[in-house]
């Protein structure tokens, strides 16, 4: 099943594609507070369901060591590796990140869209 990328995710993807070229042209946002992080959800309902079941438990908990949803600064060094590396890390697992990111029916497209959602600061 393919996932429709939300407009926000698409913007995120364009930023990502031109990372390092200043294409996003935005100032660093301060990290969102815990309540904001906890409330963030993907716009797409199916992605929101997957996110709540599989990603949220670690990516909204500072103690988990996972980069927090909406905290662009934490995601930047990861995004800098390129989406293909991130995707490989999600599928195979790396450090504290278990393989598959706890989503066992996700497609690579789902993972990509979820990474893009989690790595974008809230607007």
């Amino acid at each position, binding site marked *: 099943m393919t996932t429709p990328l939300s407009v926000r995710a698409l913007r995120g993807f364009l930023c990502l594609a031109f990372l390092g070229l200043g294409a996003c042209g935005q100032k660093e946002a301060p990290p969102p507070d815990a309540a904001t992080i906890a409330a963030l959800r993907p716009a797409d309902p199916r992605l929101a369901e997957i996110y709540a079941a599989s990603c949220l438990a670690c990516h909204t908990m500072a103690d988990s060591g996972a980069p927090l949803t909406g905290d662009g600064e934490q995601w930047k060094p990861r995004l800098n590796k390129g989406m293909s590396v991130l995707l490989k890390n999600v599928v195979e697992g790396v450090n504290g990140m278990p*393989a598959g990111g706890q989503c066992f029916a996700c497609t690579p497209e789902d993972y990509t869209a979820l990474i893009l959602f989690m790595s974008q600061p809230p607007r």
Partner: protein
Amino acid sequence: MMVSRRSLFLGMAGVAAVAGAGGWAASRVGVQPEPPAPPGQDEAGRLLWRNWSGIQTAYPAQRAAPGSEGELAALVRTAPGPLRAVGSGHSFMPLVPTPGTLVTLDRMTGLISHDKATSTAVAWGGTRLADLGAALAGIGQEMPNLPDINKQSLAGATATGTHGTGATLPALHGNITALRLVTGRGDILDCDVARNAELFQAARLGLGAFGIVTQVTLQNSPLKRVERNVWLQPLEQTLADWPRLHQAHRNIEFYYLPFTDMTAVITHDETDEPATVRPPAQDNEALLDLKKLRDWLGWSPALRRRVARQVMSGLEPERVVDESWRLLSNERPVRFNEMEFHLPLEAQVGALQEVIAAIEGQRNDVFFPIEARIVAPDDAWLSPFQGRMTGSIAVHAYYKDQYDFLYQLVEPIMRRHGGRPHWGKLNSLKRADFAALYPRFNDAAELRRQMDPEGRFLNDYLRGVFADA
């Protein structure tokens, strides 16, 4: 002033760094590489599935996330077999891998109903324990016994006998009063002590071999606040005091910190005190500092011990108050492999002493704390806690380290002391061993065959466990 475990271990790491210079050649200092990963896809383009620790892998032909019991029943009848349910993939044993269909209940989650008067609640099997804790708190209930983490799904956790600790508290499946499952024939059955009673006794802890559990009714307790205390004391003192300690506290466990002679004791007791702020978790840093101590001083157990004791002396305990479900489970971002055996309580201390002596005599590379817990009996047919008060011992290995010593050194000791393995954790037992350990094992195997005559739920590992004689 309260000294946190973080400052304790950070101090230790500093000393270790200085003291380590002498043993450089024999130390493990440096970046340990990730263990080699299997390909992300197989030749047929099927995506990799891997368990939490990374040692179990599969390339399922199909992955399904049914949204209803009807959809699931249709799937069981038609999808390529074997069908294996996956919860959160946190088991260390090859229970989940399948070349056929991997089924997740991620779309069948949340509370279904509850009864305030009896403190019971019905939840979907796919509900993760973290979400369940929050949902139960919302209706004034709690599960009084929870495992060390809360990432597991309800059905996945109970399927292997997941437990917490406390002399009066059974494992999670011990508080299941009813369940609904989809059998290998695609039938939807309700089970409890009156309806399909034998299936109930087998499927409460059923390894996903008796059916895919969709709904679970839990006997919970009224929501409580608990006071959590953590303190360090010498192993000798903890072992001598263990009978008194486990009588005195609702939830209690201790960790032995290898090559230190010290234990961290953790208790939770009900209280009416107001909640305190929970400080950021320190366990992860503490663990990595124990690793540093291993990396730097592993070559000299005597020095490692001396440095550890020096830094640990004079520390004050940690105290936190909050709702039980918030405190009992922790974040575990450092991955590991694990073996845990459940022993008759009276054998626990002796077995632990033997395990410690074996590890400290032969495996300087071990740094993960060794965990001791206590679990009340229940009567599920495949329950390791069946019919006896249980003392559990769990030994861990960092996911980048070798874990063969668990089989070579630890398992023989556990078995000699009458241990039954945790179904989800590393062990090398086979059908005959299980038949000897569980009085109803053959009944369970026969019932499994009746429920699933075509072996729709049997993967290679489970075929070995239940293979018809």
